[in-house]
């Protein structure tokens, strides 16, 4: 090991004396320290891991270029154990003990809300990637990169129902079954209102507590109600658990939509055929044509496989995470500053090019446009099917 290090050092010395460029040597000075927490253990850890991989990729890419303001970037990430109350303490620690220059948001609504309070107390900019209830984001220097728009509970259900209304056999009846997990529950209640306004007849409405183990009776009630469309307010594995319970009683819903499913398990489940979900990014044109997207997708595949993830595709979570880093980099580079006030001011006035498209932060709660699309499981893959202008080449919504 010692010999290898010595050989590497000599080679680098020779290379630099010959004028060969060594990319990571372009940065100098003390590192720019960026602090965040992630749910690396606990019930949200499977998704927290995705955000950790993305952060690692981005920081590595940054340091291979010019870092931030010519300085190397150091990412300090702490494990909040999926606990919002712990996230609050750790963000306090990042600011007061670790003395980080910048903050990056944690994973999931609860932890972000905790971090937001701390950021507000210290007037720090908080760019975050997975906040699900925009109306709760009251701090003026928080910037969301999951492009939900300010009122997703109205705008997204309309997008979905538009997609279904355009089909040869649009649904006439709907069952809304939902977890009481706050960010999906709020979307499901919104969908209920929108469905009513659009004349869809509600034949069943059910709520369950997050952590429910037995989906058999819910599946049986769905089979009994037999709606044209099932809206499942599911987060993580809940969608798969319900599908599994439905399969066991030989029931397959006609149209079925899942709010925030675990993307890997769902796309890999045979019973998830034609399942619909929301997305902001999928691995196909036009998303893949956005600047940096193709390189990121390739890097993520490699890293995720190396990290032992069962599903290595890039979709909403990884894309929102990457976008957050893009937004932070854009603001620092444009202002040539690490000053939180300067960064916040710039972000409010400017649009940022990201792999999701152009993001703006000048709407209510600093939200811009609702860029959520509708995707569907087709032949074991997620493909965007609506709106038509962002649909995967040749893809269209498959009907029952």
């Amino acid at each position: 090991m010692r010999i290898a290090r010595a050989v590497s050092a000599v080679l680098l010395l020779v290379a630099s004396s010959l004028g060969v460029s060594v990319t990571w040597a372009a940065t100098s000075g003390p590192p720019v320290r960026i602090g965040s927490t992630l749910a690396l253990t606990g019930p949200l850890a499977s998704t927290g891991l995705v955000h950790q991989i993305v952060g690692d990729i981005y920081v590595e890419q940054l340091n291979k270029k010019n870092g931030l303001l010519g300085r190397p970037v150091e990412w300090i990430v702490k494990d909040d154990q999926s606990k919002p109350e712990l996230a609050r303490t750790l963000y306090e620690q990042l600011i007061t003990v670790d003395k980080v220059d910048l903050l990056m948001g944690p994973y999931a609504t609860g932890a972000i809300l905790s971090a937001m309070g701390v950021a507000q107390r210290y007037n720090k900019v908080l760019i975050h990637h997975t906040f699900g209830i925009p109306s709760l984001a009251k701090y003026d220097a928080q910037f969301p990169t999951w492009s939900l728009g300010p009122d997703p509970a109205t705008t997204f259900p309309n997008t979905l129902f538009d997609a279904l209304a355009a089909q040869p056999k649009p649904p006439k009846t709907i069952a809304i079954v939902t977890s009481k997990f706050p960010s999906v529950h709020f979307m499901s209640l919104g969908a209920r209102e929108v469905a009513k306004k659009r004349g869809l007849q509600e034949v069943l409405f059910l709520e369950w507590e997050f952590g429910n183990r037995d989906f058999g009776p819910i599946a049986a009630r769905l089979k009994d109600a037999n709606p044209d469309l099932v809206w499942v307010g599911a987060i993580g594995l809940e969608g798969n658990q319900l599908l599994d319970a439905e399969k066991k009683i030989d029931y397959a819903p006609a149209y079925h939509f899942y709010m925030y499913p675990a993307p890997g398990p769902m796309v890999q489940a045979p019973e998830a055929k034609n399942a619909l979900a929301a997305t902001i990014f999928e691995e196909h044109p036009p998303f893949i044509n956005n600047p940096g997207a193709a390189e990121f997708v390739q890097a993520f595949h490699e890293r995720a496989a190396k990290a032992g993830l069962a599903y290595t595709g890039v979709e909403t979570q990884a894309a929102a995470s990457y976008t957050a880093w893009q937004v932070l980099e854009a603001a620092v580079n444009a202002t040539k500053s690490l000053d939180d006030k300067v960064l916040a001011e710039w972000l409010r006035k400017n649009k940022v090019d990201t792999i999701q498209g152009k993001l703006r932060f000048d709407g209510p709660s600093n939200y811009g446009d609702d860029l959520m699309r509708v995707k569907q499981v087709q032949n074991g893959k997620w493909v965007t099917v609506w709106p038509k202008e962002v649909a995967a080449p040749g893809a269209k919504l498959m009907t029952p």
Partner: protein
Amino acid sequence: MMQFPSATLIAQSVLSGVFVGSLYGLLGLGLTLSWGILRQINLAYFALTFLAAYLCYQLVTVRGVDPLATLLIIAPGFFAVGVALQWLFARFRVSPFNSLLVTFGLTVIVESAIQAIWTADFRRMESTYGASRLQIGPLYVPAPELITLALSIALSVALYAALRYTDLGKAMRAAAEDGPIASAFGVNRRLIAFALSGACAMLSAVAGVCLALSYTLAPAQIYAWIGVVFAAVMLGGVGRPLGPLLAGIVIGVSEALTMALTAPSWAPLVSFSLLILLLVVRPDKT
């Protein structure tokens, strides 16, 4: 006009409750015996159950072994783990209350080890049993759940019979009732404790395989089962082998009927309401 649920819906929900209840029972079997006879509240059984589930997943996915056949490898290994745990408890004279703390620590260690090996990502075991089911009229009986029910009944009844009718079982009960007197009558308490601890760990292995047959795995889900299984153990009576199964089925069916007839979000209230009711009405029975 109020619409009544169909008979099929109710019957299918009851079946679903029986199946999930039998899993509660299987998960609680080791805990109740260890609590009632060894005087150890061993939370590590939940972690061992998940470890067994992941080992089963690994053997099935990578080696192509039949899920039930994995028990031939996992169960003896877990017996050894159980014996080793008992040696540690005896060596450090761990009291019943401290056993709760120590085994909670062990649970966290096992969870971290699982996450280090299999990551926090979800793991789903595909097996031939997964797609199999019986149809009885309009009702469906999935094979993995049927296997869990059969194993749960068989093990609970076998343990009940063993404790009641065999010399070893009688010795175990005597040791639990009054250790020094049992020793005076020639009962080797140390050996009995090793055997029972090993057997309880083996029960975790069986529960783990059943869990892997029906559920998607993630390390943090270890904790999702603790509350309801504790309720089943206490409702069934600590130290009684048939208790967790019967109480588990009562809880499972009550939860399922709550979900079928009212709002599913009320279901979690059922197990703890039943427990509180029992504590109030018959405090001596827990």
